C-alpha cells in the first residue's frame, strides 16, 4: 500500500528501508520529510492540527503517485501523511521514491510533494499567540505545481 494517512508518528528510516527492501534494480532512493516549524508567516506556532477529508485523501494521494509513475521511471513510491494534533519538530509527511537512477527519484519525489501541496485535501490550523487560525495556501505552492506543466483544475 503506497499511501497511508494516520495520526501516529512514523519511523522514516524504517519506512525508507522497507520501500527499497532488497530490490537490486534500485540505485537511488530520494525522500522528503515535512516537519512542523515553530513559526509561520511571522507568527510563533505552539501547536497545530491537521484535518483531512477521509475517503478523498487516500484517493487523491494514490492518484498523485500514479501520475508520478506515468511521468518518471520509478521502481516504487510511498506517501505517509499524518493528521490530527502536532507540535513543532513533529513529522508531518514522508514521501520516498526508489528508482534505478537519481534523476527520476529526485524528480518523482519532488513532483509528488509539489502536487500533494496543491491537491491533497489536508488543512492546517495553527495555534498562535493571537489564537487558532487556518493556514492560508501559499502562492509559491501554486507556482511549484505550475512548473510541472499541469493544466489548471476546475
Amino acid at each position: 500500500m503506497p499511501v497511508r494517512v494516520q495520526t501516529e508518528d512514523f519511523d522514516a528510516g524504517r519506512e525508507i528501508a522497507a520501500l527499497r527492501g532488497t530490490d537490486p534494480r534500485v540505485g537511488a532512493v530520494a525522500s522528503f520529510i515535512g516537519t512542523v516549524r515553530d513559526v509561520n508567516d511571522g507568527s510563533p506556532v505552539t501547536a497545530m492540527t491537521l484535518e483531512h477529508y477521509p475517503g478523498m485523501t487516500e484517493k487523491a494521494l494514490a492518484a498523485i503517485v500514479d501520475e508520478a509513475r506515468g511521468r518518471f521511471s520509478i521502481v516504487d513510491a510511498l506517501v505517509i501523511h499524518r493528521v490530527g494534533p502536532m507540535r513543532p519538530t513533529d513529522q508531518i509527511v514522508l514521501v520516498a521514491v526508489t528508482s534505478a537512477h537519481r534523476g527520476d527519484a529526485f524528480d518523482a519525489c519532488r513532483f509528488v510533494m509539489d502536487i500533494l501541496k496543491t491537491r491533497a485535501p489536508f488543512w492546517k490550523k495553527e495555534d498562535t499567540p493571537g489564537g487558532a487560525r487556518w493556514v492560508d495556501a501559499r502562492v509559491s505552492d501554486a507556482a511549484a505545481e505550475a512548473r510541472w506543466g499541469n493544466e489548471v483544475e476546475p
Partner: protein
Amino acid sequence: MPDSRAAVPAVTTIRLVYLARLREAFGRADEDMALLTAAPTVAAVLAMLRERGGVWADELAPGRAVRVALNHTVAGGDAPLRNGDEVALLPPVTGG
C-alpha cells in the same frame, strides 16, 4: 400520452460536506439537500447555497478559491449530479 417522467421531476438527494474553514464558517460539517431540477449540476448547487445569503454568499462568491469534490474527485461546475452523490466544498489545501 404525456411523459410522466417529464411531468413529475425526480428528486435528487445529495450529501453536502463542508471542510476545514468552510465547516466552521457554515457552522455544520454536512447536510442533505434535495434537488428538484431535472438535470442538477455542481454549479446549480453552488447557486442554491449562495442564495442563503450571509456567510454562504460570502464564502462561495464567484472568484473565491473553493474547489468542489464530487464523490471524492475534484469536479467542475457542469458535472451532473445523481441521487446519493457526495458533494464536498474544499478551501485551498495546506497539507504537506
